[in-house]
């Protein structure tokens, strides 16, 4: 019955949804932001720790949401760790395009880390479920808000 949902709800995503990585509140976070999706009531807090050069040394989150939004937050925090803010923003931009543009080509992200791209491609199955794109991008929007110094963000 749910064959077409398997592309979105892959094993890896279900696993991240059930046992999210980096689900904690780091004491030494240098910035944080609250994200919420007013349509669904999903809420999360993203914590980012940056070193003096601005590199992201730690990323974590807490909150609640559907399997897609929790898996996305879990993967996002894994992915941005060790990256510069510019690189993180670049990956978000790529991911956003993946989820919304029909003519997207992964080659556009040739300069990015492959492992990150593989994970994002997996999540980009939401493209077939437009209403769920916000679930997949909420954590990324919130990460961006945190590093930009905005305390609140919303997908509306």
């Amino acid at each position, binding site marked *: *019955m*749910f064959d*077409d*949902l398997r592309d*979105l*709800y892959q094993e890896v995503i*279900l696993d991240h949804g*059930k046992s999210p990585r980096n689900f904690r509140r780091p004491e030494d976070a240098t910035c944080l932001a609250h994200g919420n999706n007013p*349509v*669904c*009531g*999903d*809420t999360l807090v993203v914590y980012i720790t940056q070193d003096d050069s601005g590199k992201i040394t730690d990323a974590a989150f807490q909150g*609640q*949401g*559907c*399997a*897609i939004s*929790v898996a996305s937050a879990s993967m996002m925090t894994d992915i941005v760790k060790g990256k510069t803010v510019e690189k993180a923003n670049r990956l978000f931009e790529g991911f956003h395009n993946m989820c919304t543009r029909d003519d997207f080509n992964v080659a556009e992200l040739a300069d990015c880390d492959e492992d990150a791209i593989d994970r994002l491609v997996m999540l980009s199955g939401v493209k077939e*479920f437009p209403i*769920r794109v916000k*679930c997949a991008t909420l954590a990324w929007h919130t990460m961006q808000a945190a590093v930009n110094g905005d305390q609140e963000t919303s997908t509306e």
Partner: protein
Amino acid sequence: MNKSSSVVEIAAGDNSTSAFDVEKIRADFPILSQKIYDGKPLVYLDNGASAQKPRQVIDAMSDLYETRYSNVHRGVHWTSQQSTNAYEAGRQKAGAFLNAASDNEIIFTSGATEAINLVAASWGRANLKAGDEVILTHMEHHSNIVPWQLLRQEKDIVIKVVPIDDDGNFLFDEFEKLLTDKTKMVAVTHVSNALGTIVPVADVIKAAHAKGALVLLDGCQAVPHQSVDVQALGADFYVFSGHKLYGPTGIGILWGREDILNAMPPYQGGGEMIASVTFEKTTFQKAPHRFEAGTPAIAEVVGLGAAIDYVNAIGLDNIAAHEHDVLQYATERLQAMDGVTIIGNAREKAAIVSFVLEDIHPHDVGTFIDRAGVAVRVGHHCAQPVMDRFGVAATARASFGLYNTRAEVDTLVDALEETRKFFS
């Protein structure tokens, strides 16, 4: 009203539909014969958000546009007279539907939201001062919270909230404790959209009036499921939206007692609501026209009138009995499932069942059962405070209408079982 026994006797109506024939009713709703996702019948269980439209409503609106449409109250020509007659007939139908004392008490708005905003802005601004109290309940829709908060920013009024118990029952004793001499307005939902709780509004009105407060009832989720008599209730304001009553969007009703309405200042200014205008001084019409500035939603009023005729022909008591049977069946089947918790088990309930599945977020539930053709609402249902009260961010909600069946409940439950398997 809603009997809690499991045997439901369907009363014979005094009209052509002598017994409730759900298949005959379903045939009136073109959308229900649709198949989606490669041949699955559409199982529409999101009536609380908006109901589907019967052919009779769709036809009434096209017929107006095709044969006699024009602006109302303005032209000397034939079409304007015809449209005005059709529009005012809609007002009479709405008046009779609520048993208003006069059709002048029926104000057309864009929906319940605008109706509540109208009362808060017009009656509220004119009658409330700093320290005056407005009482709401913990289960209000955002549209009966935010207009009062906007007024609070301006007038420094106090908003008090009647608590509910763990089953979602309205706590009458607590309500009585909140009532004081400063209480000027009690604005409560007649039926909760998130929980299905039926509030004992007749008692609420008596207690509020004893303290000199007015009562506004949000009837959005009540009017599709039970007959309402505003005079018997003794209410002061009653609001609902047409689209939840099988009518079109963009049209709603504000009913108010005529003496109260005629003492209220206008809400918006424009054409239609004035008696005379000069640059020095403008005088206003009485209700209802005072509150209907500008060209109204003419075809929508006609559509709403057709929807009222439609439910009247079937009989609201017959509808209530049928829906109660479906609700009871759905409740039993969901309770029998592992890992399902029903949120809202009030003693008196309308045909709404909100629930959560253990370890599966409602959005995921909604996406999965959608593939089985089942439409339910997932989220906070524009009632965040009630979600907070139950410690959940969201629920899945099946809300039944007159065309839903036990077989559709089975489809829902099967789809939920499949979803659980997928996630386990």
